[in-house]
């Protein structure tokens, strides 16, 4: 079965700035894919290309079985796109705004009214249907735009920072709505720099940094591989920790103190559980008295911070 989205060697340049650099990615049907990265990572540029709004410098993109360059119209008909800072037409009422786009997608008559009502209910905005869009709060605007995006039951949903401005309850509703849509076979790409919200709703994530895809795959797999790549161990010693600190430093292992616990050292270790076990064995064999050895769980934010701190790769020629 053909993947819902297949990106090969995508590159986007703005003048001398390369926003997306050789991005290759495959996303299957029914997945909720989280695109994570700090500001300027290339998330919005990637989504704009997928939304057929930005012509890439090069690269091949196939969506829903259609080539983006050859058949953008076919892709547009199957696409729902919600940009960052979602715009809204302030002088239209909420139902008029949805009515406009339902009609533009070829939905007419009673079906149009039913679809508008259904989408408004899905995002919890049915009560506001007669309110002018310009008077809505940021979070409500996001919900109306999400309803608009769902009008034509798109097979692929592209959501750029959809939860920004939403309150916690609206976020939960958003998550439920997206999982609902995905369960019906739609593919969803959600971008965010609020990582915790993505880890809860996404089935897979990709971490973009300076235009490059640093890690990607199922959420647990990415987290696990990042933890393997680098983990922080709290090492509790009996007595003065300084000799052990020196011993570790001599072995080029990065180590810091913990101000709250004078006898604790925080050890940064590259490698998986086997490496951690070997380190513990070596420390004990070196005659240091250890009474605690615990690998700290890194949050997605920590991992992102670590990735952001990595030196840039040489640009490809």
């Amino acid at each position, binding site marked *: 079965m053909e993947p819902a989205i297949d990106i090969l060697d995508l590159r986007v340049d703005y003048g001398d700035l390369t926003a997306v650099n050789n991005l290759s990615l495959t996303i299957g049907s029914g997945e909720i894919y989280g695109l994570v990265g700090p500001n300027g990572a290339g998330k919005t540029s990637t989504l704009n290309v997928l939304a057929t709004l930005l012509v890439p410098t*090069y690269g091949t993109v196939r969506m829903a079985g259609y080539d983006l360059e050859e058949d953008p119209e076919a892709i547009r008909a199957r696409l729902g*796109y919600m940009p960052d800072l979602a715009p809204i037409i302030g002088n239209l009422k909420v139902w*008029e705004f949805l009515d*406009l786009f339902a009609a*533009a*997608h*070829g939905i007419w008559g009673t079906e149009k009214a039913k679809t508008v009502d259904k989408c408004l209910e899905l995002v919890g905005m049915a009560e506001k249907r007669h309110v002018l869009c310009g008077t809505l709060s940021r979070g409500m605007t996001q919900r109306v735009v999400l309803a608009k995006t769902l009008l034509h039951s798109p097979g692929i949903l592209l959501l750029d920072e959809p939860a920004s401005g939403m309150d916690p309850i609206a976020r939960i509703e958003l998550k439920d709505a997206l999982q609902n849509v995905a369960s019906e076979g739609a593919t969803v790409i959600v971008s965010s720099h609020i990582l915790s919200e993505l880890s809860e709703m996404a089935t897979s994530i990709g971490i973009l940094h300076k235009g490059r895809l640093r890690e990607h795959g199922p959420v647990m797999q990415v987290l696990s591989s990042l933890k393997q790549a680098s983990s922080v161990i709290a090492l509790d010693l009996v007595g003065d920790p300084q000799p052990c600190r020196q011993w570790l430093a001599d072995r080029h292992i990065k180590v810091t103190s913990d101000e709250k616990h004078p006898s604790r050292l925080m050890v940064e270790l590259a490698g998986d559980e086997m490496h951690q076990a070997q380190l513990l064995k070596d420390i004990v064999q070196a005659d240091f008295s250890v009474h605690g050895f615990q690998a700290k769980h890194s949050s997605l934010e920590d991992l992102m911070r670590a990735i952001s701190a990595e030196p840039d790769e040489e640009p490809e020629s």
Partner: protein
Amino acid sequence: MLHKNPIFIRFCRSELRPKKAFFWYLLVLISTAFAVAVTYAPQVAQGREAMAAARNALLPVMIIQGIILLFMGTGSIASGITREKVDNVLNYQRLTPLPTRDKIIGYLFGLPVRHYVMFAITLPFLAFVLIVGRIPPSAFVPYYLVFFTSTLLYHFTGLVAGMISRKWRWSARISQGLIFLLYFVLPQLSHIGLVFLEFLTVRPVFAEKIIPVIGSNANISIQGMGFMAGQSVPLFTLTLSGTLFSFIIQAGLVVLFAGIVARKWKADSIPAISKKMALITFAAFSIMSLANIWPNLTRAESALNIFQSNGDLGAEIAVVLLPLIMALVTTYLAFVLMTSALPDPMQFRHGRIRAMRLGHDKLNLWEDAAGGYPFIAVLLFIQVIFFGVVIFTLNQAGYYADIELNPLQGLWLLLGTALTLFYFQALKENFGTGMLAMFVLVSWAVPILLAVVIFAVNQDQWPLALAVTGFSPIALIPFSVFQMAPVDELQDNLIHLQRALGVALLTMTGLNVWLHLRLRKLRKALPI
């Protein structure tokens, strides 16, 4: 079907809400009622015939209608479409499967929908004036047909301005500038023979059809406004009715603008006009200019209003003036088309990288991102034919024989035009549109302003001022044309003109060499 167009329906909902629109309806109602009453009632009260009084009231109604649809409507389209673009709503519309044609029609008629209603409010007053004034349909039907095609043209102008500008403020300025250009500047060129530019407005049909039927008081004020008298249009050896010609010329522009808007709908980042579309526009404009000025070239008559009182232009003036007008007008049109159709450095770079990734050695010649050498070559070829016809026809009409001048002097003009076109192309492709404006200001304007200062300080220094003018790239064409002037006429001035031409030629050759070498280097060093 307009009533089923979702974008049109949207604007009907948002723009016609009574709370928002009522003020404007009331304003139009009051001002039109006042204008008609203040023109009609006093005359009737003074015992003047009702028909004549009503006819006098036609002009204020038409002015109000023009303000509503031509000016306010165009402004609302330009600013409205830019706001949609800046707010990103246009991207939403791009993504819907609605055909591009429906999107354009929806915005074209939807954005000014309130102005159409305001126009409709004036119709009862118009009906009163037409009925009481017994104005024949043969007068007002052609006028309103041209009025509506003009409205369409101006609204398309607003749509184009909105689509090509990135900032709301700029779109309003560009559309105002375009309207000023279309309505006030370009029609002035009719005085130098390019009468077709007058027909972009309702003025000729107004002069042809309305002036004869409205009252004498109004007639005086119209004459004061300097309207062109109703006349037929010279088209090579034919003459066409002004009304018919207005339709043709406005329809041509509407097609061009529709093409630009459709391109911008598909992708915002591409040049506003394709190279092929630019060449067709250039060729059409050149043919139309030639057709209009033909009676002058063949000595059939002098259609140049500024010299009309003298009858025949006279060989001394004709051999310089006619080629100069043609060269300047077509070259400046070429500048506009080059600015719109040629890629800036980044567009070229992206196109090249893309082509190479697709395994092509170079870009397709006519692709949007491709360099402009073939485009300029064809443009120049059209110019060569055009100048060739002008000079050949002047020669056939005996102008050169009269003053014993070799028509081959016209080659100077070709050289000057070629250098100017290639210079402009290299400027655009080296630096893009933003820097182009700065170059135009610095290298084009400064030498001329300096020359003006030199001349103002000491008028005896005019040869120096002339030479300084030669440093401005736009001076080359006029100086080249003066090489076609009879030597006897110029007498001692010839040497100074030749010196100025020398300066201009050296400047332009130097600039061309520098710019084209720089462009070549830039493209060789292109990172892939």
